[in-house]
């Protein structure tokens, strides 16, 4: 590591970063006319303002707390993630799907035996798991009114399964996880397609939304979040199984 080449690389890296820093500095201090990156742009000039006002469809519409709106999720971030830009979110699911599948593809399959867990862990696991699953469930159900959502919920749920795995409990099998994953994924896109057949547009929030602030509001968002949560949970849990569930190894090495 401490050879000359490494030194050269360090110098080059610093040189490059110096160029970059100088560039950013000159951008920040530029006196030319036009919008600068350092300008404090008001939110009113951005698309976000319409999201906040929930008047994307009709510019003049107003909404009230507890009333109807074009998107009745109280969490504006959620309304963006799971409604206005739902398509992005669906693709995120695919990103996770493909990376986890790629992980499963490339990881060398070796039969690793998991150590016997301690008595304490073994016995407390069901409780722990239940608690975790509950927290996860709460998060995806309430994703549209409070911070949270499908992704963190799925991650929390997958930790529950990890705990189960570590404790040596027979929770779910790898195949079941695959099935959950596939079914959840299929459902997400089926719902998206259903929108096309019902309302003529894909990824449309076709359910009649409730009132802003209600639990049963925001139309499809809770349903989609549920599916996302299950799918993420299944995918992330799959990673643990990939490690030790040896399979048929057909390497070409």
């Amino acid at each position: 590591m401490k050879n000359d080449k490494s030194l050269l690389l360090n110098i080059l890296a610093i040189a490059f970063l110096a160029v970059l820093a100088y560039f950013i500095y000159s951008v920040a201090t530029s006196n030319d006319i036009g919008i600068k990156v350092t300008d404090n742009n008001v939110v009113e000039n951005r698309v976000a303002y319409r999201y906040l006002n929930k008047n994307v469809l009709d510019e003049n519409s107003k909404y009230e707390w507890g009333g109807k709106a074009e998107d009745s999720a109280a969490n504006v971030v959620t309304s963006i993630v799971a409604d206005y830009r739902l398509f992005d979110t669906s693709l995120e699911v695919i990103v996770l799907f493909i990376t986890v599948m790629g992980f499963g593809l490339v990881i060398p399959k070796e039969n690793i035996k998991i150590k016997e867990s301690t008595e304490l862990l073994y016995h407390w696991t069901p409780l722990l798991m239940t608690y975790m699953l509950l927290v996860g469930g709460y998060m995806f159900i309430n994703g549209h009114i409070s911070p949270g959502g499908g992704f963190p919920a799925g991650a929390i749920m997958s930790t529950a399964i990890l705990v189960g795995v570590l404790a040596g409990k027979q929770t779910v099998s790898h195949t079941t996880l695959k099935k959950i994953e596939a079914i959840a994924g299929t459902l997400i896109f089926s719902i998206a397609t259903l929108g096309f057949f019902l309302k003529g547009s894909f990824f449309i929030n076709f359910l009649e939304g409730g009132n802003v602030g209600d639990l049963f509001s925001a139309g499809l968002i809770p349903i989609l979040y549920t599916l996302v949560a299950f799918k993420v949970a299944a995918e992330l849990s799959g990673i643990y199984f990939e490690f030790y569930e040896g399979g048929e190894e057909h390497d070409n090495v």
Partner: protein
Amino acid sequence: MTMSNIFLISSTSLIFIGLFGVLTRKNIVKILLSLNIIETGINLLLVAFGYKEGGKVPILTSSDSINHLGNMVDPVPQALVLTSIVIGLGTTAFALGLTIRYYKTHGTLNIEANDEEEVTAHE
């Protein structure tokens, strides 16, 4: 110095540290670590872009908050960051998987000057 500038400077520093690491480190795990630092930096940067002095969380809690929508920070960067986090997670997971495979096939984690091409055609 405003909060916003602190965010910007710290996030830029994180990105620079990551860029430095990606170039100078030879160990794949360290490179991935650097990549993650870059990602963190970017996420912070994106959020900082949407930051507003004294802004509130963009979650509606009452009719009062509806009347002061201008006080909220920009929700869009936060939505982008959510996506970005997931992508970062995916990258890291996949890359680590490949790293394990790399260690098996190459016997090292060094990315330096290795020649993969001695294997004959496989098609």
